[in-house]
């Protein structure tokens, strides 16, 4: 690891004042330090934000929850209110990483995870995300784990998070604070598609700090499922994952949320797919229509031609599990 300057502010304003173009905030560090060891990232200054007062989970006036950015993935997944009211989020978090990593990794940091594209990590190869303008070897190289939706000529990387897929389905809001004040970003607008600027994973401005993630009151606690398909039974990134949430009136669907992981540069949602389920019976025929709409326009690469069909089946299965009732 290259040497750097280290700061440990106690207040948010102090942290924001320290931020600059060559600096990074560090919380859990589980992804950042790995990337620094690989020399993918080499900040000149680390701002340790672990002493900032962002560790609480509090109820909001609207009946939702405000999750401090520094709440660990383990504490969040096993928080009684999350387990009870947002089991989809709990399941998604527990499907990711290992217990050791979940003990360190934070809510804010999970949102900022970088892709696990082999070429992004390998500094001996070009990569438009790591070094803009150098090219994308994944597009015609080894691309089994890569995107089938929303990719660009410049980048076919996928976002690796499980937690974010559930947050997208739950329509969480990301609260950030920067040099110019505070703002709220809808989860669907937080991450971005690669376009011709794949070096940008999200829509944060320079120096902005995630301070909290807000969950709305509706947690789809009765009918939700997180299905993750991967190369081994545990401790692997998703080839395809599905967050499915339903509100049912008898056997009729009143509301639906669907988000996919492992297929795009951000959690993948399509409003038409969710709308198509409303008012329909909760059966396989309805689920198949939604799956086709969600995967509309999928463009597999040489080694991931299996992904659209795997995703289609996973969506149908996850919706079926959600309709039968959240597994407890």
């Amino acid at each position, binding site marked *: 690891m290259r040497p750097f300057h280290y700061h440990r502010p106690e207040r948010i304003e102090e942290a924001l004042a320290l931020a600059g173009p060559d600096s990074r905030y560090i919380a859990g560090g589980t992804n950042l330090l*790995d990337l620094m060891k690989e020399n993918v990232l080499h900040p000149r200054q*680390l701002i340790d934000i672990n002493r900032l007062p962002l560790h609480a989970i509090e109820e909001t006036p609207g009946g939702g929850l405000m999750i401090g950015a520094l709440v660990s993935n*383990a504490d969040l997944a096993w928080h009684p209110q999350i387990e009870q009211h947002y089991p989809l989020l709990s399941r998604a978090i527990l499907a990711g990483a290992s217990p050791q990593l979940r003990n360190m990794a934070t809510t804010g940091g999970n949102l900022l995870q970088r892709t696990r594209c082999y070429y992004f990590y390998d500094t001996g190869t070009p990569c438009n995300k790591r070094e803009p303008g150098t090219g994308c070897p994944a597009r015609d190289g080894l691309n089994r784990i890569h995107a089938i939706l929303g990719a660009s000529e410049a980048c076919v990387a996928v976002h690796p998070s499980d937690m974010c897929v559930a947050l997208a389905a739950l329509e969480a809001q990301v609260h950030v604070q920067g040099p110019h004040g505070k703002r709220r970003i809808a989860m669907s607008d937080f991450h971005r598609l690669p376009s011709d600027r794949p070096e940008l994973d999200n829509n944060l401005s320079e120096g902005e700090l995630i301070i909290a993630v807000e969950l709305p009151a509706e947690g789809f606690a009765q009918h939700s499922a997180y299905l993750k398909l991967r190369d081994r039974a545990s*401790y692997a990134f998703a080839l395809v994952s599905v967050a499915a949430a339903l509100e049912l009136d008898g056997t009729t669907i009143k509301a639906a949320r669907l988000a996919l992981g492992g297929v795009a540069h951000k959690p993948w949602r399509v409003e038409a797919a969710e709308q198509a389920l409303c008012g329909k019976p909760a059966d396989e025929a309805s689920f198949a229509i939604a799956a086709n709409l969600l995967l509309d326009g999928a463009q597999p690469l040489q080694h991931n031609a299996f992904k659209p069909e795997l995703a289609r089946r996973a969506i149908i299965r996850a919706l079926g599990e959600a309709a039968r009732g959240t597994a407890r």
Partner: protein
Amino acid sequence: MSETTCTLSLHLNGQHRQLDVRPWTTLLDLLREQLDLTGTKKGCDHGQCGACTVLLNGKRINSCLTLAVMHDGARLTSIEGLAEGNELHPMQAAFVRHDAFQCGYCTPGQICSAVGLAGENRAHDRDSIRELMSGNLCRCGAYPNILAAVEEALPASRDRLQEKAP
């Protein structure tokens, strides 16, 4: 705070330690290179194998993916801190009894991870132990005996945590 050396106070294996560290020293390198506590192993150095697992404020973490300087004032337990004198920790004794290793390289991480697992109180059957120990790889494939040892020693490990609770 931005000088090249920082002071760090740690409660390490029951002892108070005042240390000078460079900001880029990982907790793992502090233990192995600076303090000669080589029980904690460096496997992959990327958080993928679990050989470097230690207990930070009672919770299991990968010591390779965190900076020592970030943990001023923390309570840290490595494999060297689990036994009480000559009496092995119940989890250590169970690993010996079940021959839960071959080469032994992953063993300190496996044991620290299993002690952390006991504190979490989330593993209630063999399947949940397997899932919640998935962050520790054993390339010799001693998993059946590791599983048996962990399953047997979870209750005694939980009891010991309760005895030690402040």
